[in-house]
């Protein structure tokens, strides 16, 4: 191990690290350049989104944009209903004064000194500069809760994700149990069916699934989103492969102890298959939270929209209200970031070993 060094020393050590301690090679430079660029390109857009989501709608329109969320200072002035925006004005004699703007007519702005509201000034707009302060526009996050269906989108997404994941885990693990533990007639046929449909995406069967869902009377209900994707061949396949590694003796032993088949499944096999179940759970959550095309088709009323569909409808209708869109986008990506932060290792190994997404 390297002996503990002070932080700056370690950073320096990190920055000057070279391949095998030999001379600098062009690949070393390339490596660190690439990694640096990677952080910038991969995280940058998300950071920019989060920073922007805290800007006021006026702040968002500014060009060129500022990094930090700055808001114009506003003050309440006696005799005026609404708070007035503050400007720093350069007067004729060269001195500066902080004035509040009452209204703007063309290139002339009518202003007033908050200290003595009786005198009004007429100032050419070129001579004023908005006074700004650091301000987080929390209203971007709070307004959509009241003014739009945002909260119901959120609830719908949570319901869909939770229920769909539970159903998927249950029926897929049951099927995997059946396929891995028993020898029975037709097993090969079922396996063939599972493998054969592994790659059939819903894009190929949009119309008939829509028909089935309509026949069942589920259009514009959350069930229409939850049920069709519940039986995933990927899940059955993954769980079965894992369950095959469970020793048969264990199952025999529990049968000797008069366990019913359901108990064998639930108390012996399922707990042992937990790592695989957890991987499938994480993926199911991801799939369902992020799903877009299918909900877009079956959910046509805004009170049943999921977050993704709601967000898309939003950006189409309210193209100018970017301050709301950005805030809602941030909310949509929070669960994913949280799940990722805690389960990063799980997810990456799960993907690498099962090749699914």
């Amino acid at each position, binding site marked *: 191990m390297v002996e503990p060094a002070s932080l700056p020393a370690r950073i320096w050590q990190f920055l000057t690290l070279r391949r095998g301690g030999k001379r600098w090679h062009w690949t070393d430079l390339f490596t660190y350049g690439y990694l640096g660029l990677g952080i910038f390109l991969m995280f940058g857009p998300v950071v920019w989104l989060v920073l922007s989501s805290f800007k006021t709608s006026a702040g968002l329109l500014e060009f*060129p944009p500022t990094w930090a969320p700055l808001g114009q200072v506003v003050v309440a002035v006696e005799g005026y209903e609404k708070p007035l925006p503050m400007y720093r004005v350069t007067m004729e004699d060269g001195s500066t004064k902080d004035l509040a703007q009452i209204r703007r007519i063309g290139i002339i702005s009518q202003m007033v000194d908050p200290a003595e509201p009786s005198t009004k000034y007429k100032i050419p707009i070129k001579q004023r500069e908005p006074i700004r302060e650091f301000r987080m526009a929390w209203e971007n996050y709070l307004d959509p809760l009241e003014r739009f269906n945002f909260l119901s989108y959120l609830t719908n997404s949570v319901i869909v994700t939770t229920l769909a994941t539970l159903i998927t885990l249950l029926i897929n693990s049951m099927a995997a149990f059946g396929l891995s533990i028993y020898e029975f007639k037709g097993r090969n046929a079922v396996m063939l069916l599972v493998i054969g449909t592994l790659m059939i995406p819903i*894009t190929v069967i949009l119309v*008939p699934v829509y028909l089935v869902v309509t026949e069942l009377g589920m259009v514009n209900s959350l069930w229409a989103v939850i049920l069709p994707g519940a039986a995933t061949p990927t899940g059955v396949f993954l769980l079965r492969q894992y369950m095959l590694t469970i020793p048969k003796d264990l199952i025999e032993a529990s049968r000797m102890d008069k366990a019913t088949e359901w108990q064998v499944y639930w108390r012996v096999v399922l707990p042992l298959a937990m790592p695989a179940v957890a991987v499938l759970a994480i993926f199911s959550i991801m799939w369902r939270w992020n799903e877009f095309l299918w909900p877009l088709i079956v959910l046509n009323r805004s009170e049943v929209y999921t977050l993704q569909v709601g967000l898309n409808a939003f950006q189409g209708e309210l193209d100018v209200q970017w301050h709301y869109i950005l805030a809602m986008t941030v909310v949509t990506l929070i669960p994913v970031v949280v799940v990722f932060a805690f389960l990063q290792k799980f997810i990456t190994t799960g993907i690498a070993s099962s090749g699914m997404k």
Partner: protein
Amino acid sequence: MNSELAQHSQFKDAETGQLHLKILITWPLFLLFRFIEWPMKRLQSLLGLGPMPYVFLLPNLCFFGLFVVLPLFVNFAFSLTGGTNLYLDDRTFTGTEQYAFLLDCGNYADPLSCREDRFWKGLFNTATFITLQLTFLVLFSLITALVLNKKIQARGFFRSVYFFPVLLSPVVVALIWKWILLRDGILNAWLVELGFDKILFFVSPAWAMFWAIFISIWAHMGFYTLIILAGLQAIPPDLYEAAEMDGTKQERIFWRITLPLLWPNLLVVIVLALIKGVQTFDEVYVLTGGGPGTATQFIVQYIYNTGFTNQIQNFGLAAAASVILGVVLFGLTMLQLAATRWKDNG
């Protein structure tokens, strides 16, 4: 029940965070168990052990049959009918008319000469998109995996840096980039700073396609990087040691050892990316809406538009188009199975 599970678990060295997750998952399942245990017990005493596997398979197969297998056949039936009714009995049988309509072209190289030019435009767009996206996706994934496979500090951190966007939803990905690429967005601010003019990215077809490809690579690269990385780590290190001993140049090591041994993994990546590429819809739809004009309208959007958004919902045509898409995907899947088999056999 929970403690029991924890005992059986293979994560005995798990940190508390992972245990919490397990409880979170198992608790509702525990309720379910109580709910289903009794009827299952009765069923077993009634039927005996023999039919039990079918009982376990039944729920899954019901869902599967109803939402995958049945629709596969119904889809084909749909593609042979016309009219605007959703219910099959009210539709008129038209035979292969829908296919004939889709495939009716004066000159197959020119989408505008086809009767259903939007379909062909969609096919051409998808083909252009896939060709470019796949090339650069594989290239960048390979470079990233090679870089991440080196002895660098904080490797786990960098791995998650590149992987992170994979988890974002397509809608979020599209909105993030749309926000950056707006007329008054940050990218145009930089262009102005550097002395260029602003570019209206969503007005120019070429730029819209460029960003569709770029964003798709940005969002999915981490996934493929991971697969390649797994392949890189499976290469026996003594091969490299032997090569270094002989004083072989890095470039030569790459071409002679790394690439040949990695090729099976790369092939899997290529086919997987191809299958996903054909189905591209969400990101691009939210980003450009298929525009400007039809410049970024892909085949899946054509199906969606034809079946679900137009004034007259043409389910027959949409079904016929998706049968064609299904045939293409089936071919690609066969390719993938062959690739996987080849990989497994070394």
